[in-house]
């Protein structure tokens, strides 16, 4: 039986008609037409589908959309505001952390939560922070570099801003 639920996606409230078994990933991709979260495995193994629910990174393929009713969802499309990229996005470009790019959006969402929790992470903390996200192109070296770069830019730019 389909059911009408309300979600806040990237700051906008939306009503969606979903099945009890619809995953958040399916809902985002097929009904909200947000293609940034990707399906890589559908079993919580790769992290390509990572989005933020109330600021926490989750595998959207393993999250039933009904379980996040009324909560605030942030996808990669919600990262950049008013024409400016999020520091994490810009750092991924500048550090050369994007190759095929299929893991990139999920990886950046994991990085966003990491940096929100810990604005100045060590290399080990960065590596642990993205351990739930697989990449097969980069060997992670430039991804780690990008997150470090984003951290330093955020610190430089976010003085006085609320967390």
């Amino acid at each position: 039986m389909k059911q009408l639920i309300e979600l806040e996606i990237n700051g906008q409230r939306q009503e969606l008609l979903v099945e009890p078994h619809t995953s958040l990933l399916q809902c985002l991709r097929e009904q909200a037409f947000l293609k940034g979260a990707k399906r890589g495995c559908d079993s919580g193994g790769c992290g390509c589908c990572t989005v933020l629910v109330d600021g926490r990174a989750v595998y959207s393929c393993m999250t039933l959309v009904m379980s996040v009713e009324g909560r605030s969802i942030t996808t990669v499309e919600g990262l950049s505001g008013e024409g400016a990229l999020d520091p994490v996005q810009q750092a991924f470009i500048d550090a050369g952390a994007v190759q095929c790019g299929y893991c990139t959006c999920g990886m950046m969402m994991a990085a966003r939560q990491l940096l929100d929790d810990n604005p100045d992470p060590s290399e080990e903390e960065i590596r642990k922070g993205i351990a739930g996200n697989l990449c097969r192109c980069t060997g992670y070296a430039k991804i780690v570099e990008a997150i470090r770069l984003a951290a330093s830019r955020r610190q430089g730019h976010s003085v006085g801003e609320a967390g």
Partner: protein
Amino acid sequence: MTEFRTIGRSIPRPDAFDKVTGGKHYPVNVSLPGMLHAKLLRSPLPHARILSIDTSEAERLPGVRAVLVPDEVPRIPLTPVYFTPVQSPTMVQDFVVMSRQVRWAGQPVAAVAADTPEIAEQALELIAVEYEELPTVFDPEEAMAEGAPQLHEHAPGNIAKHEVFSMGDLEQGFAEADHVFEGVYQTQRVHTCYMEPRVCVVDSDTDGRLTVWSSMQHAFGLREKLAFALGIPESRVNVVKPRYIGGGFGGKLDMGFIEPIAALLSRKTGRPVRAEQSRGEDFITTARHPIKVYLRTGVKKDGTFTARHIKSILDAGAHATHGSEVIMVHGLFGTLFPWKCPNQTWEGFAVYTNNMIGGGYRGYGAPQGCFAVESQNDEICEALGLDPIEFRLRNTWREGDPHPAIEGHTLNTYRLEDCLRQGAERIGFGERRPAASGEGTKRRGIGFACHPLWVSGCVGFPDIYEHAGAIVKLNRDATADVVTACVDLGCGQITVLTQIVAEELQLPPESVRLSYADTDIAPFDAPTHASRATYSAGLAVQAAARDARRRLLEAAGHVMGADPQTLVLEEGRVMVRGQPDSARPMAEIIARAEAPWIEVGPEGPVPTTLEEKGTIMGLACQAPPSNPSPVGAEFVEVEVDTETGEVKVLRVVYAHDVGRLLHRSGAEGQVEGGFQQGMGYALMEQMVFDEETGAHLTGDFLDYKIPTAVEMPRSIEAIFIESDEPSGPYGAKSLSEMCLIVPAAAIANAVYNATGARIRDLPITPEKVLRALGKL
């Protein structure tokens, strides 16, 4: 050295902005109005004959639009491998899209198109298939033995391919040896693990002509194979090149089952049909072939090779597909020709079993060969107390030597010695301790391996496509559109091809765009494989850009009343060499060539037309002139926990002769990512199958572990030895595959140095380490 404007600069990737803001253009996002969704029913049995299929219940399920069974699929034997012409005699044509004869667990036996993927999935459960079970064989050597179940009528003894290649006098060579070494080296089945699943959308037009969007690595190959499989002319298929795909690494090198099945379902329903594989299906679509290598080597006291006998047995699985070619590349480029040995015989078998089929994977037979040969080379040095670097140099090639494998070609650039010496110095190889001399639970060791011959494409392989083509079209706003069928899998072709055109036309890279391309409009281009794209497609794009520049200067000559020979391009302007005052904007020349040019004079607008030109376009369709070998040597430091058997890679130094570096950051990315795949191959990755049913047991990333950021070494250092390859674009050679050919052998040698344990079968799991240390 020539000064370049864009070449050699790590420009931002033109595709990066799109990818960090959502990545709109992956094939997985293609969606058409009215599109249906296809799912495949796969056999649970590894060897069987289908007696009957009842689809009536499935057809009655609301939302089901069509069901496809083997009898409706053209029975055209083919190979899905698409870097050779369809009827190439070297490729075994033993594959049909859907058959009543089942040879592996997972083989598609029926398909459904429905309004949603969920309905299609449900319908699969309603299809009743009656099978007659047949005896199975999963081990290639058992399959070769007398009395084994026979899988294909055309292949007695289950031999899909048997090749022997000899040089010199083997017997004489072994007689001359002071020492003979023997070993058996086994590699496992692994998957490329691209992140974007295989997916396609096929739309059959009212007249039956097909338009195809697919995640494959080769647009023209898909057109050719799909048309062949369906028994229609090639021009009845148009394959749209994906702007980019989510990884491939060889795993998307051939037509899958989904493309022809979606095509047939689209024809049946008159609607576009999309098929997207699950991760479990991706795993069993193609994989790197396991190869068992029997290696026997004769050496002089000083380490000079006198003789080598190599026997390689490749598990092709149920169909030959790539197996019949991988075995050859493995034999010739993975084991035989990289090393200078006067007397060698290689014998290779590709053997049918009831396992899944294999496919391409970065290195294409060479990682298996390098692991065997470089492991044994290390054993020889240890046993004879030889300096392992001098040993390699003694037995490999020199710059200027004739190409050992391709007649008429020369190793123009070959800096293996620099790679070995600089890599050794950087990791501190001189201070390496003798094997197993450490103390305590955790023991460190350093090892290395090299691969002294590889390819920049396929020139010299007479049956394999290598042509490339491109169109460069100049726009009136002084930008360039590039039409090329070359697919970027993520390794950076969009970037380097952009750089090349920008360099030739002296434009900023932002003014060059790799535009839409499909097989209707783009010239033929061979697949993005065999480390060829930067070299071969790069040369074609360069030639097309030069053609466009020549036409531009001719038009400028008319406009400026100057001899085109005296004109040069600079910063978006055309000028007479040495006369900056003569400069005219490129945009003006392009516009005047293409359309009426309106000058506003004192009397008002005055249209003038330059009749000689029209749109300025450059075209090139060509084969590259050569196949220069990249070479590389990789050094690793590992730490082995002798209580748990766990191996940790601490540090990597990879020195690589790539010719001129076009984009350092991209090249580093190839090295770092290649090492990740190589480390997975060496230490943890292995597809596991049920021994009785043949069912794949490691079909997701919870069971099939690939390295995460935590397992990866903290330091991967890439040293690029820049040579100036005369045949390459700006002196460039290739890179990608070398980064994955070498790591497994380097890690195995480092594990030996740390512990004295010589592991000859991959992956080097903790269990194997403990066993080798006598602790299990």
